[in-house]
């Protein structure tokens, strides 16, 4: 089964794309061909929580609740240094490798 990472943002068009680009690029570099990276609206998150292939949530919004899968705050993809971006990408790689 494939692995799904959702990238959620408030308004849904722009900022999550920046995170999505970085994550896709890293997944390709790692040779993870079974990982799907999908941009969604935070308001639509419920529909994804029941999916059995969901392995991780990257949220451009602050997170005020808990989820059954690992969640990371994706703002550094938009405003962080390269080092901060790499730290997040390493975390994502770890999660993908473990599931």
């Amino acid at each position, binding site marked *: 089964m494939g692995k799904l990472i959702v990238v959620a943002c408030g308004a849904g068009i*722009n900022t999550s794309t920046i995170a999505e680009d970085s994550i896709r690029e890293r997944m390709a570099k790692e040779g993870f061909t079974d990982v799907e990276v999908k941009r969604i609206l935070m308001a639509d998150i419920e529909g994804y929580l029941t999916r059995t292939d969901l392995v991780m949530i990257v949220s451009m919004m602050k997170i005020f609740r808990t989820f059954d899968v690992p969640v990371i705050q994706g703002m550094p993809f938009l405003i962080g240094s390269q080092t901060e971006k790499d730290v997040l990408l390493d975390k994502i790689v770890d999660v993908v490798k473990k599931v």
Partner: protein
Amino acid sequence: MALEFNETLIAFDLQAKNAKEVIDFLAKRMCAQGLVTAEYAAQTWAREQHHPTGLPTRPFCIAFPHADAEGVHRSALGVAVLRQPVTFQNMADPDEGLEVSIVFMLANRDPEEQIHTLRNLAELFGQPEKLVEMREQSTLQEVESWLRRELRLG
């Protein structure tokens, strides 16, 4: 994909009381050049209430207000370097106010193009030294040529 950007779309050392004044100022400039409709200021302000665009960049915050493509005739970038910061709400947490020193106002005809602009801007957002460099430009013309170079606007 041509992005309209010129001297009159930049406000340098702008004195504004609040975020709405900055948005109104830049939208008016865009409208005067026929780039957006007269409603663009109101549409942008309305969007800002539901989906704020302040970002906690370092060492000072920025915002990138914009509205939907319907009010846009030609894609444009407006920039305001503020004398004193104004408060925008945080995109990641609308309950948090951020003191914003530079405003990048976007007007885009299509989402793809907006993403392209945002990608270039995001490169600056992640580099504190670049933001400082931008704010330290001493004339409006310097701000314009600096941005043209950094955003590769040609």
